[in-house]
């Protein structure tokens, strides 16, 4: 075991340190710096990767359910839209703002924003329907911009900057991990063609010849959404890194 010993100072050093501590304190009393952000009137500058309110773009959604699979808090439910497709709904009562859903979304339909101060009157209201996720929520704001503090590393001086912050981040659609669905146990295949029916991008094809079904996954077309993997009755498909 390593023991940490107190540093040995003689009385001169000790006095010097006391004086230096007291004089620094006195200096700060007279000419103070300030790092407090007066929140409702000011706001800290959020980084672009801030994990806040999540927006949804239905046109980019491919209904792959990835967001709902990955959600560790089970906050995302897929709800059937009148068009027959499934879109996510988000329960902010459960959401832990990990943004795994935003990261996994293969089409970039879910977008992060810097909005972090949405208030609800009750728990039911926190269940956000798909339609409510398209537009950012209405928030009454007192602040007019952000405040940012930059500490100089050399002399520890503090610079206070102000500016106008855009709460909605324009991010390039996230690429995510390029995945592709492949068959791991071809012997177990039933040849049922459910995968072909599920595939939205038309990557899976089956061709019936006499005495044979030829199954084919077009790797270039596959978006890696995993719908076929989920639906396969024999569970013989897996997602692989491209």
């Amino acid at each position, binding site marked *: 075991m390593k023991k940490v010993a107190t540093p040995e100072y003689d009385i001169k050093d000790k006095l010097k340190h006391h004086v230096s501590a007291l004089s620094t304190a006195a200096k*700060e009393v007279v000419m103070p710096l*300030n790092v407090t952000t*007066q929140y409702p009137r000011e706001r800290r500058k959020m980084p672009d990767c801030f994990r806040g309110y999540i927006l949804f773009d239905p046109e980019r959604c491919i209904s792959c359910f990835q967001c709902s699979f990955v959600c560790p808090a089970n906050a995302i439910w897929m709800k059937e839209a009148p068009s027959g497709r499934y879109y996510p709904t988000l329960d902010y009562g459960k959401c832990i703002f990990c943004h795994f859903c935003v990261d996994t979304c293969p089409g970039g339909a879910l977008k992060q924003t810097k909005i972090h101060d949405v208030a609800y009157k009750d728990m039911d209201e926190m269940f956000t329907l798909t339609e409510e996720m398209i537009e950012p929520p209405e928030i009454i704001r007192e602040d007019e911009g952000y405040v940012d503090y930059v500490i100089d590393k050399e002399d520890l001086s503090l610079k206070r900057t102000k500016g106008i912050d855009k709460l909605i981040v324009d991010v390039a659609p996230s690429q995510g991990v390029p995945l592709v669905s492949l068959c791991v146990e071809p012997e177990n295949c039933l040849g049922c063609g459910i995968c072909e029916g599920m595939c939205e991008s038309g990557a899976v094809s089956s061709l019936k010849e006499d005495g044979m079904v030829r199954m084919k996954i077009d790797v270039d077309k596959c978006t890696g959404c995993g719908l076929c993997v989920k639906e396969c009755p024999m569970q013989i498909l897996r997602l692989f890194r491209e």
Partner: protein
Amino acid sequence: MIDINALISTIMNNQVNIPLLQPLLDPLLGMPVIGYIIALILWKPFFVLILIPGFATMGIMLLILPWIERKMVGRMQWRVGPREISPHTRGIIQLLADSLRFLFQEVIIHKDAHKLYFLQFPFLYFIPVLLPLLFINAGTAGNPLVPIQTDYALQIMVALISLMPVFILGVGWASNNRFSFIGTVREAFLYFAYEIPFIVVILAMIVLYGTSNTVGVIDKQSGVWWGIIQNPLAALTFFIATVMATARLPFEIPEADQEVSFGPFVEYSGIAFGLAYVMGYEKMYVLSAIMTMLFLGGGSGPVIPGLGDLSYGIWFVIKTLIVLVVMANLRGVYPRYRLDQGLRIGWGAMLILALIALGWSIVVMGVRL
């Protein structure tokens, strides 16, 4: 039979002289009843006890000192301090708001507490805290402003101050709570650690001044020969002992929030807690006033024209405030010592310093004689 005329003449012969206010006071003094009241107030001993530097000043200090402390420590730590309660005055009425809250909060006495002592001790505590004000001389050489003149003033003050921890021990015992017990034991330990150097230092100053009458003490500090210059070691030791006695931050061992959550006062709530909270600041004020009197020349300073006797009082209050501010400042500078470190400082460095200060006083006295 009290000779009323003799009493009136005693009062009238010992009036505070404020030339600026004299035109205003003269017609009032002529009035039948108000005249007597004004005369009583302007009677020097009464004036000192009630107004400056007595209860009225202390009350104002208690209201603004926590604000000063919080604001200053906030600035040191790059914060803002209290603000939201009145943003335009920078939150100066924070303590007023706090005390209002304390006033209307429920006072909870838990069932294991000793009910009688639990409520009694915070009030009894005021006796040793307030009585030393009777002997504080806020005047200057040849012009004393003191309620009671006695040759044993310093000894009485030391006795009263030594009585203070007894009430804290009582409070801790009556609370019947493990945290309050720990805090009480810490207080008891620390009590002996600071009390002995404290008494030795007072002894050194009595030796140095050759008197324990507060009037004599001020008389011996004429000009720039303040006590702090005559015996700086004693001043330092007295200051550290004061910090220890009031449990301010480097020695906030008995009341350590993070460890024993306000120590002996952990069970108090509502106005009882408010009293305990204010008590610490009262103790601070009284000890700072003694420090001002013993080491900082009392009310001596350039006379402000037109204020007469009041000028001394104002200088005394300003000096006391400076001592208080320095003491409050320590909160933002030092972290808390452990109990053993505090005890080592008390029984080690401070006792040695106090004894050296006593020796210094004896040598100085010998040279003078």
